[in-house]
């Protein structure tokens, strides 16, 4: 590759001036002539039979256009919500979820009616007048009780509450355990989390009956996916269904599926023959947007006294919620990565998906990998404590060291240097000095702790060879690169940006690869009307898969430009040299043409014999493998034993995401990611009443999202181990921070409390809970 100027440059994000000056274009900014507004009436019960719905008072209220219930929608929406196989092809049951409940509501917040009115105020007022006669049924809330035979059912038409039960055996587990000096067990929880994007969900549907055409503006990570399913259910072909999703104020995994309201608003637009807007308010968002995690792991590890890890057995109990999330079973990937970055002789994992009367869970930043990292990194520390070895040394002893490495489940780790990142993090935090200080402070009755997280994660989803069998879809990615006659470049992509800075990163790649000025490159995404089909953005895939699709189109354009240059210089194509956008005949760099000149020629007269006009290319990229970022985070905390309050003194991270296109964008992703993981470790927890299924954390007053003030300074550093999987040598970084960070904090807290004999701490490590543990330990 030529000497590059933009790839690797720490330039500011081109998205930001628009966003921070209030010029973004979000869903609530979309206003159409004659637009009506939708308010959703939701079940207040976690589980109830719907005896009857009386809409007459609402219908008579001021400004009401229509009040619609399931029966009205059945005539318009042709089928249930989609569910992918993702990792559990043989699900035990996939109950159908129609976008609106007809006779039985299975979670608090499930839609039971909608009101369409002239404005949102009137719609909300009328929604209060819809009278639903409910017969409350028992709420199934506890995962283990839900699995018992004879348990009350989450929905009365189901045989039991088990969604899947899948075993992942790898290696001779009995032999591995037979060799062990120590066998240790631990239950490790993963509380439910709200993804809490700053922009809640919302959509505007504009159905034109005259020619069966529809435009749906929606806040999503996956516009093409929405078009496929919502268009399909409404009987509108892709050619006539346009999904637009420009600026999106955060997704975090909670916006990667079609949602009931997208179907309902579109159907309501069809029924009322008016554009319909629905904006989710925060209260609704906490009830009716998919949640993350919600898992319990029972783990058993076999190890030798010298620190060698031998075998691992664990069961993942996953709280599906009332219905399968579209990708909920993706989180089973935790089973395949449970061994982390260590060599194990055998691993036996099992995942059981359990239905409860709660909102569905679905991927949330990290989706399965934070859980895997949390469990293995916790277990390694538990082993270290038991055998009296430094946690860093247990890690060092067991690291995978040769790459590519095929893990117990046949997944191939592309490249890595785990020891290097740990050594670097230990040097950055000055580990020996920190341990010494810990000892001094303990003597004074102060409790500090140091926590490690050495992680590896799977991202860049994904190769069709793996994703098609596992998820039923080939997660390839697309691009279209078009060089206009005067040289500016439009790049349309099938990925979708909602905070990641793609417009900047992708333009940097295109500028270098085509050799054109950065400012001449426009990146377009989020409008199915002018982008090629793509699967959207999640699973840290946009650069490693989508970026490569862009590269592929750029290469095609350069190839054609070379032909044009050869023609112009009357030389043979082999003699054309391309150097940073200048095309010349070898040995004669003084006489060169830039891409803009060749583009102009491509649309003009006198093209080479047989060449088509224009300078553009469309490409699809199917990666040969996933990519495997890794790194080491170390956290230093102090716990106040009297109040249980935790303060983070240092947070050091060394991450390796392969080659870096824009260091500032990467650092930004790490900041946000680490903050979300720390937040899970210390603050966030969706709480429901165990009996009634009512949500107890229904406002942002009770659900704690920390702010900048609660975050430590992040001391970031990186190593660069390029991925051999793609030409850019890149991996992914959108989720790495979250995957690594929760356990660094929890391990640090557990280490701080070691003098009390406390061996394990659950999330969130609330002060009152830590205080109770200390009190019990002291007693």
């Amino acid at each position: 590759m030529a000497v590059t100027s933009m790839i690797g440059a720490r330039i500011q994000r081109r998205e930001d001036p628009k966003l921070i000056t209030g010029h973004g274009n979000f869903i609530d900014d979309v206003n159409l002539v004659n637009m009506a507004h939708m308010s959703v009436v939701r079940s207040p019960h976690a589980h109830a039979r719907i005896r009857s719905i009386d809409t007459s008072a609402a219908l008579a209220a001021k400004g009401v256009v229509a009040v619609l219930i399931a029966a009205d929608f059945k005539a318009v929406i042709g089928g249930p919500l989609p569910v992918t196989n993702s990792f559990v092809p043989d699900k035990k049951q996939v109950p159908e979820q129609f976008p609106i409940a007809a006779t039985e509501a299975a979670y608090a917040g499930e839609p039971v009616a909608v009101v369409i009115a002239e404005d949102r105020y009137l719609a909300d007022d009328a929604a209060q007048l819809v009278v639903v006669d409910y017969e409350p049924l028992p709420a199934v809330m506890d995962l283990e009780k839900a699995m018992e035979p004879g348990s009350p059912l989450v929905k009365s038409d189901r045989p039991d509450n088990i969604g899947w039960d899948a075993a992942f055996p790898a290696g001779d587990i009995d032999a591995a355990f037979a060799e062990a000096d120590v066998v240790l067990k631990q239950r490790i929880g993963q509380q439910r989390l709200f993804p809490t994007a700053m922009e809640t969900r919302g959509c505007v549907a504009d159905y034109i009956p005259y020619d069966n055409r529809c435009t749906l503006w929606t806040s999503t990570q996956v516009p093409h996916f929405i078009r496929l399913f919502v268009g399909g259910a409404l009987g509108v072909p892709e050619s006539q269904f346009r999904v637009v999703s420009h600026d999106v104020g955060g997704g975090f995994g909670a916006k990667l599926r079609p949602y009931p309201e997208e179907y309902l608003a579109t159907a309501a637009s069809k029924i009322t023959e008016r554009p319909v807007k629905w904006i989710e308010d925060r209260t609704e968002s906490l009830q009716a947007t998919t949640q993350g995690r919600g898992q319990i792991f029972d783990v058993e590890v076999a190890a030798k006294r010298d620190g060698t890890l031998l075998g691992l057995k664990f069961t993942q109990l996953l709280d599906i919620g009332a219905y399968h999330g579209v990708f909920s079973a993706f989180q089973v990937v935790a089973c395949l990565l449970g061994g982390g970055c260590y060599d194990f002789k055998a691993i036996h994992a099992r995942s059981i998906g359990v239905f409860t009367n709660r909102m569905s869970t679905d991927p949330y930043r990290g989706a399965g990998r934070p859980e895997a990292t949390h469990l293995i990194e916790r277990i390694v520390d538990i082993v270290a404590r038991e055998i009296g070895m430094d946690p860093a040394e247990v890690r060092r002893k067991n690291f995978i060291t040769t790459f590519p490495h095929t893990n117990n489940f046949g997944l191939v780790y592309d490249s890595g240097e785990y020891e290097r990142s740990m050594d670097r993090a230990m040097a950055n935090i000055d580990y020996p000095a920190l341990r010494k200080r810990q000892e001094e402070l303990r003597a004074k009755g102060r409790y500090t702790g140091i926590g490690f997280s050495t992680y590896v994660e799977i991202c860049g989803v994904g190769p069709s060879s793996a994703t098609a069998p596992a998820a039923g879809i080939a997660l390839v990615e697309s691009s279209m690169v078009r060089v206009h006659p005067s040289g500016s470049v439009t790049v349309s992509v099938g990925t979708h940006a909602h905070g990641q800075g793609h417009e900047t990163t992708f333009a940097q790649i295109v500028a270098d690869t085509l050799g054109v000025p950065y400012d001449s490159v426009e990146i377009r995404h989020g409008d199915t009307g002018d982008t090629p089909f793509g699967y959207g953005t999640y699973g840290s895939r946009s650069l490693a898969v989508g970026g490569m699709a862009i590269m592929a189109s750029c290469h095609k354009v350069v190839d054609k430009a070379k032909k044009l240059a050869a023609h112009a210089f009357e030389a043979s194509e082999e003699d054309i040299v391309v150097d940073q956008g200048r095309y010349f005949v070898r040995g004669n760099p003084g006489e060169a043409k830039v891409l803009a000149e060749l583009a102009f020629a491509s649309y003009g007269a006198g093209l080479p014999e047989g060449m088509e006009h224009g300078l553009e290319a469309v490409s699809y990229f199917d990666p040969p493998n996933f990519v495997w970022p890794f790194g080491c985070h170390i956290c230093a905390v102090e716990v106040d034993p009297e109040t249980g309050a935790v303060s983070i003194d240092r947070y050091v991270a060394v991450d390796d995401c392969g080659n870096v296109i824009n260091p500032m964008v990467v650092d930004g992703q790490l900041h946000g990611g680490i903050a979300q993981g720390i937040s899970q470790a210390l603050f966030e927890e969706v709480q429901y009443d165990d009996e009634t299924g009512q949500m107890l954390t229904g406002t942002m007053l009770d659900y704690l999202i920390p702010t900048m003030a609660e975050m430590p300074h992040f001391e970031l550093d990186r190593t660069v181990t390029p991925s051999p999987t793609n030409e850019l040598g890149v991996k992914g970084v959108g989720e790495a921070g979250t995957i690594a960070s929760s356990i660094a904090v929890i391990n640090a807290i557990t280490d701080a409390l070691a003098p009390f004999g406390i061996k394990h701490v659950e999330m969130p490590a609330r002060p009152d809970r830590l205080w109770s543990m200390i009190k019990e330990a002291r007693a």
Partner: protein
Amino acid sequence: MITAAFEYARPGSVDEAQSLLTKYGDDAKVIAGGQSLIPLMRLRLSQPTALVDIQGIHGLKEVRRDNGSVEIGALVRHVDIQRNATLREALPILVEMANDVGDNQVRNLGTIGGVIAHGDAAGDYNALALMLDAEIVTNKRRHKASDFFRDIFTTALEHDEVVTAVRFPVSTGRFAYTKFRRRLYDWAIAGVAVQETGSSWRVGYVNLARTPRRGASVERALAGGASAADAAAESGSDIDPTGDVRATAEYKRHLAQVLTARTLEKATMAA
């Protein structure tokens, strides 16, 4: 997240406010900064039929010091308290509390009259008013703080009563306030205020019962010469916390004791 419909009026005087409240009846409410009322209305937990906005009334934004008292107008905002030179001298503990109320947006709108009238046990100023024997001045009478806070979100105010000012005794002795919370802009999970007045100490508790509480037992122990730690051990009889999604009652009791000792130590060390 959208309020129910309501009437809106903006009187120019306290008398006019009172007659509007009478006119609209029991379901009308005064609105000042709206920082407690509007969140409740948006959740439709409160659905007043009319709002009487007192922001247009003159004379409720002053801070006046006379003799041994400082009188703070009901519409004085948290941010005004933070920046007020008189208060910094005459009642510095209030300034310290104001610094930590909510976030900038809340401090720019919320008023001291609103905190008092709302009667929230978690309102920091309410515990201070109670422990310093402040007076709550309204269009109808003067309430002693000790008679004012009746129950959870319930005060001695009548329906057509408007708080016009709060009168605190000038308090220039040593003081400290500890607000235990998870996030910088949160309400207190538990708060402890201590103020030296003459030769004795006053103690107040935030969010440790259904109403603000005075630490009478702790005060007595201190008057009897107890150490900070020993006096703090008495805090249990001054409070009556309940558990919630943030913390158990048991923990709050423990916290009250730890924070009482620490706050007293902080105040005496600040000498």
